[in-house]
């Protein structure tokens, strides 16, 4: 498969006073901190299926890692923050998978940080991947990283002072005209928090509402802000 160019089709916008880039490769780029922020990689998901004898194609992991490489290289990223669900399940962390990801990790000279997601809880991240675990209460500039998007109640509380970058939902946008219906992965950017698209392409998602967030769909290698037609 051909790999798209990382600089094409992006959208830049100000979030919590910082300039952030939304990439159609399903990542957020924070230029000032040279940091890539991604969510829900679910590494080893296809391997979990294979462990039950379900023949999944081998190229899913390759494609995920190559997409990360394209992003790292294009932006000269120095750090990756994963907002949860780096891995899928314990059964999926076979020797082969651990080794292939380690090969990728060894080639990346920067730091990899992870806030623990629900899937990571059941499967400890292999030490050879050299991943630093972040507490999801720790701020990073104006941001805080959480796997699950905050509830409106917690946003009202004191800890809600920082802008939250999260994942977990694998957000999609459902666009319905009188005739056409389109479902696409998306970024949901709200006033107090944002939800990132799942980095893995092997997943289904939750439909987001545009009521309290701007929705940026990913289509044909472009990030496009969309809205329901009135």
């Amino acid at each position, binding site marked *: *498969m051909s790999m798209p160019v990382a600089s094409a089709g992006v959208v830049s916008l100000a979030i919590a006073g910082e300039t952030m880039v939304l990439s159609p490769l399903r990542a957020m780029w924070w230029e000032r901190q040279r940091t890539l922020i991604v969510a829900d990689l679910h590494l080893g998901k*296809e391997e*979990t*299926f*294979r*462990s*039950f*004898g*379900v*023949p*999944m*194609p*081998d*190229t*899913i992991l390759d*494609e995920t890692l190559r997409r990360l490489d394209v992003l790292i290289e294009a932006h000269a990223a120095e750090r990756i923050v994963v907002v949860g669900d780096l891995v*899928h*399940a314990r*059964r999926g962390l*076979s020797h*082969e998978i651990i080794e292939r990801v380690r090969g990728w990790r060894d080639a990346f000279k920067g730091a990899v940080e992870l806030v623990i997601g629900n899937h990571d809880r*059941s499967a400890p991240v292999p030490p050879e991947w050299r991943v630093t675990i972040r507490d999801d209460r720790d701020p990073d500039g104006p941001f805080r990283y959480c796997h699950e998007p905050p509830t409106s109640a917690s946003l009202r509380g004191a800890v809600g002072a920082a802008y939250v970058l999260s994942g977990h939902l694998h957000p999609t946008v459902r*666009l319905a*005209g*009188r*005739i*056409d*219906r*389109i479902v696409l992965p998306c970024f949901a950017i709200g006033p107090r928090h944002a939800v990132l698209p799942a980095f893995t*392409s*092997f*997943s*289904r998602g939750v439909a987001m509402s545009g009521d309290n967030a*701007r929705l940026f*769909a990913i*289509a*044909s290698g*472009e990030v*496009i*802000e*969309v*809205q*329901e*037609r*009135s």
Partner: protein
Amino acid sequence: MTLTTSRRARTTTIAADASREPLRSFLALRGLAPYEYQSACWQAYAAGRSGLLSVPTGAGKTYAAFGGPLAELVRERLDSTPLASDDPSSSVRILYITPLRAISRDIEKALRVPIETLGLPFTVGSRTGDTGSSERARQRKRLPDVLITTPESLTLLLASGRAAEIFANLRCTIVDEWHELIASKRGVQVELGLARLRRFAPAMRTWALSATLAKPDLAAAIVVGRTTTPCIVQSDVERPIVVESLVPQAIDRFPWSGHLGLSMLGPLLDWLDPEISTLLFTNTRSQAERWYAEILRKRPEWAERLALHHGSIDREVREEIEARVKDGRSTLVVCTSSLDLGVDFSPVERVVQIGSPKGIARLIQRAGRSGHRPGATCRVLCVPTHAMELVEIAAARQAIAANEIEERPSVLCPLDCLVQHLVTVALGGGFLAEELFAEVRTTAAFADLTRPEFDWCVDLVTHGGEALKAYPRFRKLSIDADGRHVVTSKGVAQLHRLNIGTIATEATIAVKWLKGGTIGSIEEDFIARLREGDRFQFAGRALEFVRLRDLAAYVRPSRRQTPFTPHWAGARFPLSTALANATRRVLHDAAEGRIVEPEMLAAAPILRAQAEISRLPRFGEILCETTVTSEGHHLFLYPFAGRLVHEGLAALIALRLGRIAPATFALSMNDYGIELLTERDYPYVGHLDAALFSSDRLIEDLLASVNLGELGLRQFREIARVSGLIVQRTLGAESTRRQLQAGASLLWQVLCEFDAANLLLHQARREVMDRQFEERRLAATLERMRERPLVHVVTRVPSPLALPLLADRLGSTLSTESLLERLAPFRVGSGP
């Protein structure tokens, strides 16, 4: 050899030799003589033949098939000393396969009676999904001489390490209700199973039982396999069929579309009599639920007499209903095809068909449930739910009179069934690729299987295909020292046994009382939409949804009734070719002013409206309408080829039009025609020519439209399940199930992207064409559209034929515009 027989044989020899024809002796004890076709079957069996017995329902088929092998057992037993129960040769002698496990007990009883009456030393037992654990334990020690089973349970027995031993002494396999199995993957599963049994017991004979079939020779050839010439026994026991209907008094109040339509409820209630046993057939489970609830609401005094029966109701509840029906406590039974076969209860006097039967064979079968005696007249009362069903009922009557029955196309080379079979055989003793290839090719379904296709399937389960090349421990099969493919992993074995079968079911969720007890199961999609406190109608009760937990929906009884019933996916039958042709003929007659049938007289005002607004389609033409409404620009075409063909046709025409002038179309279809809708003005008329309906590149274009329209997905869901790509049932832990949750749509998308050469994807696409769109029927329809004149009418309002397409829009969209073009209206800043 084809034998056609009738009447009972005239001679009644009480002293008939029980060892030669035990069932003749048994019947004689009851003062009966066998029917001629029963004797004919016994003789054919004694002469070593295999074959097919095709007679109308309710005519003693079971004994016709059972007599021959029973005589053989008696003779063998007389020739030898009694066998000890632990003798390894104490294995199954006669295998009886029924597609419906609910009737296995009735068959068991029917077979046991003569054996016990004549004091024969044989055991009879059942092995189905309902067989309890103590009975299973007994059977592990010793299987009965006569075993009744289902296709799925047979496959499970074949997946046992002792399969060769269990079936080594098999003399005969009887396949009941073969007409129900033959056009399906379950039928293919049976074919593969029979080929396996013939390897274990080369002398085994095969007899299939069926209702009247359009092509009995083909059905017989499939069941006996390609190495045997079948014998066909048919009976001309005539069962005249009378089709009647409830005709609405005033057509202007009668709905024009829909399928639940209750407008004839009042007249039906007047006609029904709780003292007369009556089966009320509906076409869908939701329709059954709805009619049951409405009858009960209007006639609460019938509560004791009225019962509801369909396949989603929990087994225990269903068995209780069946028991009530059998002993006559319940006399009015609202049911679906769950009661098409069997459940032989006290004679049914009347049969009601609610809605159009959609097929001639189905109507004959259902009518056959009344007057359950050879030669007796079958009567069926049809209750139309909307106006066009009046036309279909009249057409069905004419088709029955003309003896036009649907042909059942067979399923060819379904690789998903083969993939599953490979694991089954590997579990049941293993196989050598060379030998199994030859064995599989003896079935009609795989007669054209190529070695590369076979090897691809073996590779998929042995090496995991391309996907699992690097993962030896995830392989399902391994090769032992003798070169045999076997299963060594316990996990693979357990998972396979849990997921055997070919009946595609949507993921279902059990519906349970908060206080304990299961009511049945409903598709996940329906449950997912419910919120706490929502009410719905299921298993004949009004329920209130409480919560969803551990894959069960917990409910409590609701005091308030609700019209809200679950929809079960894919439940609606399409109009069959035979009935569609008959419908076109009666419409043609109406257009020519010949309106005689009572249903057509009742429908006359609507037919007149069609003629005024547009035109009544003649048999030799294709009607085409265009119109503009607030929705947009519509094209209607009426080929009358059934909903499934229309689904393919709509996608094909949209794709071909879209190539000329790109657009995004909404497609909808019903049994009569298709609708294409665009938001903007679209030049339909200029492009409706022979090129649009061409059969050139039909397959390529269909594939392209299938990919675009994602129609292949639905077929893929079944294939993915049968071949083990989607695991439906896992062992215990809920967490396992969650780890494996991948809908068919996701798998389809992933395979298309990462493993495009996967043959199961090809099969999915091919099946969409063969079965979903019935490619041959589609090609024939296109030919008709090219050759017959296309009569175009611009209508100021949608015509009576068009309205149902507008009202019942369940269709999809197909776009030939790029994603970015399609997104344009949704872009922020694109303006209103």
